[in-house]
């Protein structure tokens, strides 16, 4: 058994996984990774299930040291400078941390959350099937709170597996897509338009519970008190001051402000990775489009193992080729791993 010791870490860093499902009816928040795709990518690189427990690292720097043996790790998510024992390493690539070596991560360069996955995953005592930290409820394992320097994880010794990189699709850009509702009828057309047509910035006071938005004040039709009802990740509630709050993974399970819209599942992680102060817009989409995107997003996560490539070879960047529209036929051939056969029509 090796250990991975947290040698330095900033605030807003904690153990997270796919979250705690099934007990929202008792007021138990789901929690879990703010950017599920990046969590899944990092885990896939080291052979873990997509939603295994990993370290969610907030915007500040962090360092981790292997003790009592080697540890295989991978980092995905918000880009940052990273090195092992002074040698730069790439994001989205697995790497071995030898006994005594330190992984050093700089500040996030854009985005907020980077995921450090460890081969064999972080071990602890699950509550409702999850190790995710929910500091307010005192939940999470092995530490029911944000991480501190000196914390350590017991880790399976690194296997002899060869190193891998993962080819992720080009990040989606453009507006954050929302579905109007459930209480869009608490706003008149002018205020719905104001919400959809304005530029927004995420306030620096945002956290895992909610992202507060800076922009024009949105006015309610009938006041800001509704009878509390259920919330989801991405619910956009508008409190009395008119400044919308997007509810994130540590949200309360119910809330008493009208919710004008809901961020679509496929875009919640993108919003989570939007840095404070960066301007962005919302765009309303149809239920059909939102559900189609949700299914594609789930399929993307399921397909991550097929996107692994040996770390030491320079293979085709399929997404780049696809985007350039020069390799329509070859792309599927490479994906299927049957280049020779499929290349002959």
């Amino acid at each position, binding site marked *: 058994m090796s250990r991975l010791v947290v040698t330095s870490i900033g605030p807003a860093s904690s153990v997270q996984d796919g979250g705690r*499902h*099934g*007990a*929202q*009816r*008792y*007021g*138990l*928040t789901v929690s879990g990774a703010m950017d599920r795709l990046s969590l899944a990518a990092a885990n896939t690189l080291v052979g873990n299930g997509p939603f295994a427990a990993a370290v969610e690292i907030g915007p500040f720097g962090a360092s981790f040291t292997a003790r009592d043996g080697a540890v295989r790790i991978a980092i995905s998510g918000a880009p940052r400078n990273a090195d092992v024992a002074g040698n730069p390493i790439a994001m989205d690539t697995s790497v071995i941390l030898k006994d005594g070596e330190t992984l050093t991560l700089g500040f996030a360069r854009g985005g907020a959350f980077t995921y450090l996955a460890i081969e064999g995953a972080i071990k602890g005592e699950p*509550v409702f099937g999850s190790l995710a930290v929910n500091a*307010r*409820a*005192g*939940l999470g394992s092995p530490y029911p709170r944000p991480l501190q320097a000196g914390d350590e994880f017991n880790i399976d010794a690194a296997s002899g597996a060869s190193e891998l990189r993962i080819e992720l699709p080009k990040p989606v850009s453009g507006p954050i897509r929302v*579905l*109007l*509702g*459930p*209480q869009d009828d608490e706003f008149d057309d002018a205020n719905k338009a104001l919400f959809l047509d304005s530029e927004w910035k995420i306030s620096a006071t945002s956290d895992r519970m909610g992202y507060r938005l800076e922009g024009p004040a949105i006015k309610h039709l009938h006041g800001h008190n*509704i*009878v*509390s*009802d*259920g*919330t*989801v990740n*991405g*619910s956009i509630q508008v409190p009395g001051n008119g400044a919308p709050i997007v509810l994130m993974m540590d949200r*309360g*399970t*119910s*809330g008493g402000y009208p*919710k004008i819209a*809901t*961020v*679509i*599942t496929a875009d919640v992680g993108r919003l989570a990775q939007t840095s404070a102060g960066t301007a962005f817009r919302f765009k309303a989409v149809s*239920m059909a489009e*939102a*559900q189609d*995107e*949700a*299914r594609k997003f*789930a399929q993307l996560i399921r397909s991550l193992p097929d996107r692994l490539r040996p770390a030491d070879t320079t293979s085709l960047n399929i997404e780049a080729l696809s985007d350039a529209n020069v390799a329509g036929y070859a792309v599927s051939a490479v994906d299927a791993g049957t280049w020779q056969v499929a290349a002959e029509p």
Partner: protein
Amino acid sequence: MASTLPPPRLLPSGDSAVTVEFSRTIDDDANQRVLALDKALVASPIDGITEAVPTYRSLLVHYDPGKIGFDALGEKLLALASQKLPPATKARRWRIPVAYGGEHGIDLEDVAKALNTTPDDIVARHVAGDYKVAMIGFTPGWSYLSGLDKFLHMSRRQNPRVLTPAGTISIGGVQAGIQCLAAPSGWHLLGRTPVRTYQLHRNPTFLTEPGDRVTFYAIDHKTFEELDRAAEAGEIVADQVVA
């Protein structure tokens, strides 16, 4: 009774959840229909539903759009919601001890003043209430109760407190509450209970369920300390009776 209510509205809560709304206001009939639909989903599960969250007036149904689409799910939910309410089953009743006033209920005197009566009268009215757990939400175990004496209805505090103690027994608007964990609150704090509605390593982890009945009884502050120690050790210090 159910037939006098309009069919619920289906409100999209994003692409993976739908709010089945029976009423816009706090309404006991609506809450009964919410809990009936919640039960119906346990009795006749719909493939693709991952979790249902009952609230005062609506049921939030989480689902996997990879398994069922909004329209198909909506149709099934409306069909279930239109069924006649099942005959009321015997509800569990919890008798919850409360230490009122003083350091445990810092708003008791102010509430009495605002309502032009005595703290003892407030306690008597609160204890006399026959409550129902309408929903659990916000933080683990926070039980929202219907059935508050109309005399005790008063608007929430202008300035919510950033932290109120674990076990707080409070009132806010037309609602009464049992709060489990320390949390922000804009409600009026009448007392504290040693009962943990949520305790991690206890069986059951969650004491109350939506639909349970609740009554309170007053204890002195010394008894509170004793019961609090027992509760901390994992004992359930509320009495359960079948109503």
